C-alpha cells in the first residue's frame, strides 16, 4: 500500500518534512561558518548580511521539530493506509457502519 497514491496531502507532508529538514541543516551549517564582526560602521550590504544571519539563527529551532513531526505524521498516514482506513476509526463511525449493515 502506497500512502502517497491519490493523496496530495501526504505528498505535501513529505515535501514539508524534507524542506524543513534541509532548511534547518543549511541554516545550522551557515551559522557554523562563523558570523563576522565589524569593527567599523557596517555598510548596507553588511547590515543585510547581519540581518540574514539573525534570521538563520531563528530557523533551526522551528524547522527541526516541524520536520520530525511531519515524518511522524507520514508514518501515521502509512499506518492508516495499510490498515485499509480502519485504524483510528472512532466508536461513532463503527456504530454508523454497523447500523447501515443492519438496515
Amino acid at each position, binding site marked *: 500500500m502506497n500512502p502517497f497514491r491519490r493523496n496530495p496531502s501526504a505528498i505535501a507532508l513529505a515535501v*514539508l518534512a524534507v524542506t524543513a529538514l534541509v532548511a534547518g541543516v543549511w541554516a545550522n551549517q551557515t551559522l557554523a561558518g562563523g558570523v563576522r564582526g565589524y569593527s567599523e560602521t557596517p555598510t548596507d550590504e553588511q547590515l543585510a548580511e547581519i540581518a540574514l544571519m539573525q*534570521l538563520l539563527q*531563528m530557523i533551526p529551532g522551528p524547522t527541526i521539530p516541524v520536520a520530525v*513531526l511531519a515524518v511522524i505524521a507520514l508514518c*501515521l*498516514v502509512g499506518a492508516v493506509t495499510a490498515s485499509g*482506513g480502519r485504524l483510528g476509526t472512532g466508536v461513532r463511525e463503527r456504530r454508523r457502519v454497523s447500523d447501515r449493515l443492519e438496515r
Partner: protein
Amino acid sequence: MSESRSAQGIDPRFDPRFQRGYVPSPESDGGAAVETPPPKVMRPARAAALPVPPAPGRLPPIAAKSTEPVEQAEHVATPPKRPEVGSADAAEPVSSGEIAAFDEPEPESEPEPESEPDTITRRWIVAAWVVAIGALGLGFWLFWSVAGDRGMYYGSSSIDPVLQQAAWTIAPPLMQAGGIGVVVLLAWQAIRRARRNARDDETERP
C-alpha cells in the same frame, strides 16, 4: 336477563351500557355496572406503556358512576374496526398486521444530511489553516521587522522596545506553532484522504 339483552342485540361480552339498543333500568343499572368488568380496549402499540388495568373485582371510579352513561361513553376509546366481529375472532389475539394498523406511521427515513456537517467541518478546518499560516506569517514579520532595522545596530532604533522584545521572544515560538499546525492539518487531511481511498477501493472491488 341476559336472554332479553341478547334479544335486544347486546353482546354479553361487553358492558351493555355502551352498546346500541341498551335501555337502562333502575334495578339493573347499578348491578350491571358493578358486576361487568370494564371493556377491554385494545391498544396494542401503546399497551406496554400503559398501566395495568384493574382487576375485575376492583372497578375504576368511572364504572361506579353509572348515572351518566352517555358522557362516559365518550371517554372510552373505540375498539379497532374489524370487518366482522364474530365469536371466533374475539378470542383470537390481535395479529401483527392489525397492530401495525394502529401504529403511528414511521417517518420515512430521510437521507443523512451530509452536506451541512461537511460544510461546518470545512469551515473549522479553514479557520485552523488561517490560524496556522497566520502564526507563521506573524512570527516571520515580527522577526524580520526588527532584524531588518538598521538603527538597531547603531543603537538608535525607531522600533518600539516592546516589539523588539516580542521579535526575540515570541516570533520563534509563533513560527514553530504555525509550522506544527500546518503539519497537523496536513496529516489530518492525509489520513482522511487515505480512509476515503480505502473506502473507494472497497466499493470498487467486485
